[in-house]
């Protein structure tokens, strides 16, 4: 079995290495991917279309808005599936539980975390809100925000974290994120454009169409951040406790 797998894998490797000689060399500006009209258009006219300096954010939230919206939905569904797979089902045998975490939270650890968590959360907000002009955005800010809750769960226990951010609230927030995203898309549709065509939001926002796209992108990123925050914490809470949502890691 293992030998057959090795032969198969080496065969695939041979094929792929054979194909590698047709690829462009490292950093070639004339490579097909770099000289394609699509990416050249994104680089050249992002600033004119949207006034967002970070092209990645602009392409992510505006030009490819559909893609990002449904990626967010994928994250949401994955979190829903994890919780519903682990909740219920056959009861685990007691012998599997070899170690039960039962100790007082450490003083030094909890106080350090008490100091660090606000900094992490403010940084997460900064990353989310400043994603237009620097690296960052909804995904990164959301994950950093979720990590702060995971840190609370690790340093105290899961119960403390769940008191602040219960699983039901997690899914409410995650669904709210998608609703914000889709709502901005729908709003631009109601205002006469197409779905996720943010330029038409200038009719309700007191700014130019380009700046309307800028601000709508911020709203969309906030929606993404909500969903990712909630799902990352729900993933950790389910996986560390095997779905029982108590006395986990």
């Amino acid at each position, binding site marked *: *079995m293992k030998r057959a*797998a090795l032969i*198969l*894998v*080496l065969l*695939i*490797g041979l094929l*792929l290495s054979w194909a*590698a*000689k047709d*690829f*462009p060399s*490292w*950093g*070639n*500006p004339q*490579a097909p*991917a*770099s000289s394609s009209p*699509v*990416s*050249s258009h*994104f*680089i*050249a*006219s*992002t*600033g004119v279309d949207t*006034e*967002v*300096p*970070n*092209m*990645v954010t602009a*392409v*992510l939230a505006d030009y490819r808005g559909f*893609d*990002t919206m449904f*990626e967010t939905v*994928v*994250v949401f569904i*994955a*979190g829903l599936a*994890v919780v519903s*797979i*682990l909740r219920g*089902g*056959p009861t*685990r*045998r007691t012998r*599997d539980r070899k170690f039960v975490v039962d100790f007082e939270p450490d003083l030094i650890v909890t106080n350090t975390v008490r100091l660090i968590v606000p900094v992490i959360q403010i940084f997460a907000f900064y990353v989310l809100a400043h994603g237009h*002009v*620097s*690296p960052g955005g909804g*995904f990164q800010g959301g*994950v950093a925000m979720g990590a702060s809750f995971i840190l609370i769960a690790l340093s105290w226990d899961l119960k403390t974290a769940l008191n602040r951010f219960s699983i039901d609230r997690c899914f409410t927030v995650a669904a709210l994120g998608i609703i914000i995203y889709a709502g901005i898309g729908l709003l631009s549709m109601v205002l006469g454009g197409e779905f996720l065509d943010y330029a038409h939001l200038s009719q309700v926002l007191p700014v130019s169409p380009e700046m309307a796209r800028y601000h709508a992108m911020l709203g969309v990123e906030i929606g993404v951040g909500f969903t990712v925050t909630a799902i990352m914490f729900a*993933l950790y809470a389910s*996986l560390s406790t*095997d*779905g029982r949502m108590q006395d986990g890691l």
Partner: protein
Amino acid sequence: MFEDGSILNQLLVERLNYFIYVVLLLIGLWAMIAKNNLIKKLIGMSIFQTAIILFYVSIGVKKGATIPIYLPEHDPHGSNLVTDSNSTELTAHGPQVLEASLVSGYTNPLPHVLMLTAIVVGVATLGLALSVCLRIYRGYGTAEEDELLEKLEREDARNTGGLTRRRPRSRRPNRNKATNNQSKRSASFESSKSQSPKNKNRRPSNSKPKVGSSSGSEPTENNKPKPRRRPRKLSARKPGENKS
């Protein structure tokens, strides 16, 4: 061997990056196929995934280009405009379409966008796969592939055997379901443990029909009266019933 134009030179010197992506991808693929532990398989899956993401990102690289964020002189955002002492020149720095020569100064943003979402979705699917692992562990008590396959085969054997065996006994249909979990665990005890000294002590009369109990695990299974909770007791009991 490494002279210009030879295949090795092509592969290991000029296109070393592609070669290493292929190696990483193969490591991940091999781990997914051949590793025994399910968690190791998932780590292999992540390595596979990052190898592909690495390939995508690296085809967007341009030599001498900067990151895909506008430099201040190209910055379209109004508050960041370069304002000289006299602000009459302000309109010259407004948003403008970059020329082709400037476009090549920025890295291609499109692969970055595609891969950024792929990473986040990747961790969500990793969490989903891990939850399935936990569920498998809860049901079968193992996360090793060979033990898992063994248990599944044993369960299959029990189930197909159970169909032929239990059909005539329609008086107790609900017991089949209730003992199904027990039977998959007890399968190994049927033939091997039937002659343990404990059973002999409990039923001293079965020293005589030893032949029947050791060779006849199949026939006794067919006509045994009903599924028991304790397989050991069951097989120790069979010879006595056959005799009577």
